[in-house]
């Protein structure tokens, strides 16, 4: 590869205050190749791409496209240079059509009319060339996540991008949709485009890339040819040390803890539950797989007391769940790890000790006469929890928003697990955490299982579910499949079920009871 690289980073450094997000990064990308950018959450992958795309300006270093310097801080010049970006969080307007989303910015703003016919023609040609099937006149809000991603890719290709950047593109896809994406990427590189593929999932990167650059704490720690790379070697490079995630040991399940019967919510959307049945026993972790937005959130809301408009029954240790009453639910022995730490897990502007007592403000331990908070004993208890759960912070009086993701999650664990709950609802407990924190959170869940807790683990990461659950169910369009012992279904089967193709464990021919 002696040709001029289509893209070259030279010594790019970016700082946010005291944090160095990118440290002297140098990289090259050649025509027709897929370069994978591997790194943990917070390693600086997205920051680097945002610099390339002009969202941020680098403090040092430069970027060259076809040997020419790219003006920094200008999205327009990045687009003009042929760079197209598919953001992790889609940049689409839901209430506008696919065509409108794609053509925005491709015509002079001051022209008096849009040449829709020409735009349609060009789009139709691209849709058939690359197999990116999507209806140009559909509203984005009507599209599935996979289709939205296709719109994002089309948006970049429509502007004649020669370098395509995909930021964590598979995070929201089912395994089959991911396969389809990989096929698309292949046909794109065959047409001479170059791709940067950002991910922290090793198996994808090994499947899709030609070369791999590993980013750790903002710096490139290695660039390898995919053909000669090993999974373990990449994992160690990415994390900086050998990390082994905990695995399940065999324990016999105990008594019934949670019993959900015929649980439904009104409405017809994909997030509304349809006759959900579920049981959980002591010493058992049951996983719920599924693409986000298929009802997992609704189920979690009901179990944690945030929603009470449902039909069916939920029994916890033989008692009816106190629907819509979070305090009573927590008091009856439920530990909650919410999906979104920042939005629901903590009050970021309050102190750590305040967040730690927020679920049992009225307990005698921290409360005098039923309504006066005893700051001294609350802080003392917080100190103990901080130490036990290894929350790295300045102390109980530090502001919660200063914690890293992993430490914030440890704080939530400390709060949820301190009362030795009999049922733990863990909704995406490791999302966005680094390897060390992931291992810690998972160990804590296993510890709770050993002690006798029943744990419901909701996750979009099939590898995590495979490694950590005793039984597993799949949620799609508000319907929950039967929870079979983990390993009874293959990843491919689960993927099909996630896409709504029925529960093959329950009925033959992939046709489920509700008529798919």
């Amino acid at each position, binding site marked *: 590869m002696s040709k001029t690289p289509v893209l070259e980073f030279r010594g790019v450094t970016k700082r946010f205050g005291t944090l160095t997000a990118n440290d002297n990064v140098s990289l090259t990308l050649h025509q027709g190749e897929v370069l994978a950018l591997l790194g943990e959450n917070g390693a600086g992958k997205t920051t680097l791409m945002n610099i390339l795309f002009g969202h941020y300006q680098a403090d040092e270093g430069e970027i060259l496209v076809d040997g020419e310097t790219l003006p920094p801080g200008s999205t327009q010049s990045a687009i003009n240079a042929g760079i197209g970006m598919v953001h992790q969080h889609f940049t689409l*307007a*839901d209430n506008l059509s696919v065509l409108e989303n794609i*053509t*925005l910015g491709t015509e*002079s*703003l001051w022209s008096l009319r849009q040449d829709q016919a020409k735009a349609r023609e060009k789009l139709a040609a691209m849709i058939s060339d690359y197999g990116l099937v999507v209806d140009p006149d559909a509203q984005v809000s009507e599209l599935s996540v996979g289709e939205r991603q296709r719109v994002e890719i089309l948006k970049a290709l429509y502007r004649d991008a020669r370098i395509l950047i995909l930021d964590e593109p598979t995070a929201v896809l089912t395994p089959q949709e991911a396969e389809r994406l990989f096929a698309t990427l292949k046909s794109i590189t065959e047409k001479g485009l170059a791709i940067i593929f950002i991910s922290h999932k090793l198996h994808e990167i090994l499947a899709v890339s030609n070369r791999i650059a590993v980013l750790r704490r903002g710096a490139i720690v290695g660039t390898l040819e995919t053909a000669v790379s090993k999974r373990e070697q990449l994992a160690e490079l990415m994390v900086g040390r050998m990390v082994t995630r905990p695995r399940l040991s065999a324990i016999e399940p105990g008594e019934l803890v949670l019993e959900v019967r015929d649980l439904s919510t009104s409405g017809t959307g994909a997030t509304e539950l349809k006759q959900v049945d579920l049981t959980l026993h002591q010493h058992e972790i049951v996983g719920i797989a599924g693409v986000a937005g298929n009802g997992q959130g609704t189920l979690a809301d009901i179990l944690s007391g945030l929603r009470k408009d449902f039909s069916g029954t939920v029994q916890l240790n033989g008692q009816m769940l106190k629907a819509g009453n979070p305090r009573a639910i927590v008091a009856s022995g439920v530990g909650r790890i919410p999906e979104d730490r920042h939005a629901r897990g903590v009050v970021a502007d309050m102190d750590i000790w305040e967040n730690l007592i927020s679920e049992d403000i009225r307990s005698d331990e921290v409360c005098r006469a039923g309504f006066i908070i005893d700051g001294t004993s609350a802080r003392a208890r917080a100190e103990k929890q901080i130490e036990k759960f290894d929350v790295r912070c300045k102390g109980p009086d530090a502001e919660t928003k200063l914690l890293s993701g992993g430490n914030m999650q440890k704080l939530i664990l400390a709060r949820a697990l301190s009362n030795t709950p009999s049922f733990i609802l863990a909704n995406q407990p490791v999302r966005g955490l680094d390897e060390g924190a992931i291992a810690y959170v998972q160990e804590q869940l296993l510890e709770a299982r050993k002690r006798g807790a029943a744990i419901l683990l909701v996750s979009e990461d099939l590898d995590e579910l495979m490694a950590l659950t005793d039984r597993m169910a799949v949620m799609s369009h508000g319907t929950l499949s039967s929870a079979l012992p983990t390993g009874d279904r293959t990843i491919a089967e689960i993927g099909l079920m996630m896409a709504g193709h029925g529960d093959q464990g329950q009925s033959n021919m992939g046709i489920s009871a509700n008529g798919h």
Partner: protein
Amino acid sequence: MSEFIDILLTAGFWAATIRIVSPLIFGTLGELICERAGVLNLGIEGIMTVGAMSGWMWVYQGGDLWTGVLFAACVGAIFGLLHAVFTVHLCLSQHVTGIGITLFASSLSYFVYRMLLPDATTPPKIVPFKPIAVPWLSDLPIIGEALFTQSALTYLALAAVPMVWYVLFRTPVGLAVRMSGENPVAVEAQGINVLAVRTGAVMVGSAFMAVGGAFITMSWFDAFYFGMINGRGWICVALVIFASWQPGKALLGALLFAGLEAIQVRAQQSAGAFIPYQFFLALPYVMSILAMIVMARKTRYPQALLVPFRRGERV
């Protein structure tokens, strides 16, 4: 009941409706443009006041009518720029800034009026826009007088509705404006400057509002009074929601409100003896609230309305 039907059949009622609707159309379209770009402009009441004062003052000081309208539009755009600096560039609360602009712009209007005309006891008058009778069409019964014997500014207001629709829904710049109100990050990702689009939209929208105010002093009446806008700006804000941010529906909503207003004036005269007149004054507002309850339940807000956009911020 028959009295109401009589009212509806008079040309005078329809002519009054069209006259009342004109400033509402300008104001509603102006607010609609701002909100489509994602910026709520509660400065509308004050901007209409300052438009009413400056247009009128321009003519009173010897300027001609059309340059007066243009002057009012420019003054409106400047207040729009002020609103945009605070809300779009400095990302301050759009509610608080808007109320501030309203207080500032109306007070400034009264102040300038008093300063330039310290001795005026009765409000001085100008020669306003004259009704133009469209040949042939104005001879039609009822509609002739109502629709085709109006002032040039009314025709402009009616023409502005399809024009604004066309620009918003059929041109690239309109797409950029709508997209800024739906997802500014998407606009940024396509290499368009969101701040510039929003600033431009707020300025153009504010110019519309100011022309709406100018209509009142330069076409409807011929003088400037204190408190003359009398809540019309707020009505426009409500009409935008009523119209689900669609120019066509905005015209419909404005007509409905104006019709109710015209009816209440006439109903006061015919039924004023047994029902207190305040009841009729309140009627259009009560009806608008009811209409809003029916219409606004299924509206789709621009998703980025009230959401400031900060460039290059870590998300």
